């Protein structure tokens, strides 16, 4: 049985900044990294495998071909297979088109009963791909999952966040799970896996390989359009309190008092 973990390469936010004078986002040479929450999804997938040794964990990513080494590096965590979906036709996909492409990839992989993704990406922040995938694949959705307590061929028990707190639920497979950040400790890479990875390849599939209808991919498959982007201007730095420790605290308190009209 296959467990598919969907991962997204995103620009490293630390290295991006807004040039306020020019009003543009500078992404210069920002390295691509794996979206933070996808590591939680990966960890959940690997924990399923810890519990059921014969499960197969695959990572699946739709990305530019030059992300191949980033995807390959995930073998270091102990995943069994890695697949990169890459085609010019996929470029410019919004969440609707992205989930279409991913669902085609998942259908090709076959025998997937658990699909995991990070709840959202750090660059898009929409949290849409997981629920979209569940709908497209006709699978049930477990959103905002913190941890997995039990899994077998037929069912899974997870800790899930909802608006009332945290609950433990049991669901029958197949399911799509979206992972949120938690106290879960994410494992580090193992030398053994890193060495093994040297002989492993990342499968690269294009639109044809996954039988994707190009009209549903990329820009033509996208429903939403970005009409414009603008940088909010006019935000200036406020007053900074000066002085030694004592003076700073004194001043801070006088501001507090002033504010409350005390």
């Amino acid at each position: 049985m296959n467990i598919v973990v969907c991962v997204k390469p995103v620009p490293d936010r630390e290295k991006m900044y807004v040039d306020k004078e020019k009003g543009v986002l500078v992404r210069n040479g920002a390295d691509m990294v794996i979206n933070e929450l996808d590591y939680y999804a990966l960890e959940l997938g690997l924990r399923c495998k810890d519990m059921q040794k014969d499960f197969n964990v695959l990572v699946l990513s739709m990305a530019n071909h030059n992300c191949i080494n980033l995807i390959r590096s995930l073998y270091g965590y102990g995943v069994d297979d890695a697949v990169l979906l890459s085609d010019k036709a996929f470029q410019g996909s919004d969440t609707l088109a992205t989930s279409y492409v991913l669902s085609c990839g998942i259908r090709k992989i076959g025998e997937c009963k658990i699909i995991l993704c990070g709840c959202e990406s750090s660059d898009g922040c929409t949290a849409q791909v997981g629920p979209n995938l569940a709908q497209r694949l006709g699978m049930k959705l477990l959103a905002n999952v913190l941890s997995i307590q039990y899994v077998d061929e037929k069912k899974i028990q997870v800790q899930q966040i909802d608006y009332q707190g945290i609950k433990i639920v049991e669901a029958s497979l197949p399911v799509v799970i979206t992972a949120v950040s938690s106290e879960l400790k994410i494992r580090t890479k193992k030398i053994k896996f890193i060495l093994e990875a040297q002989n492993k390849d990342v499968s690269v599939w294009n639109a044809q390989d996954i039988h994707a209808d190009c009209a549903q991919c990329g820009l033509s498959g996208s429903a939403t359009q970005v009409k414009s982007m603008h940088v909010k201007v006019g935000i200036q730095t406020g007053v900074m309190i000066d002085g030694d420790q004592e003076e700073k605290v004194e001043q801070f308190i006088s501001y507090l008092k002033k504010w409350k009209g005390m």
Partner: protein
Amino acid sequence: MEMIRKYKPGVVLLGSTLYGRTIAPWIASALKTGLTADCIWLDMNEGTLIQVRPAFGDNIEAEIICPRRKPQMATVRPHVFPLAECRDNDGTCKLVRYDVTNFKTDFLTLLDRIKVLENSQSLEKAQIIFAVGRGIKSKKNLDMVFELAVLYGAQVGATRALVDMGMIDRKYQIGQTGVTVKPKLYIAFGISGCIQHMSGVLCNEIWAVNNDENAQIFKKATLGCVADINVFLPLLLNKMKE
């Protein structure tokens, strides 16, 4: 889904809450239409819904449209618009009642509840918030902030980083994946000012205490103080008590 198929609305809006953010994309996918997440402003222009949302972090806003498909769907951040008054059939809106008793899920069994959130409404409605981040470091400092909050009549909020460390309960989390707050005064102790946190803070009076003079939070703050929390907090608490 049934209602949308029946009434064929031009626009479908849902709240950008934990639940809304989960079901909206499912619906959009089933209808093969577009969905814009976390809108902070909406406008109608000749039948086109202009959807404004934050993008790529700091200070950028994107206008998104869904020109070719219907319905145009968006989730909207809680509290970005004032509550509308809607009376049934007053000419501006019509309330439709729909029987949902026949819908149920059968794939899911609730086994247990391990944590029940107390109502986070006190945070959503708070006028003054003392927010704490990873810079707080110790339980002792955290307790001091709670004490200060009581003295000053404030509520305590937190960043996700601190919640994830297990230092404070999730109900205190402010931000994109937490509560959206609208206080009159918001004071950040040891918070870097990441967009995912700050997007949940709708406030014109932001004060910040941080030991890193280059922290992003100072760019947004109306009042800033470069100081080490470990020294600043005990002094502040002592003086406030006087």
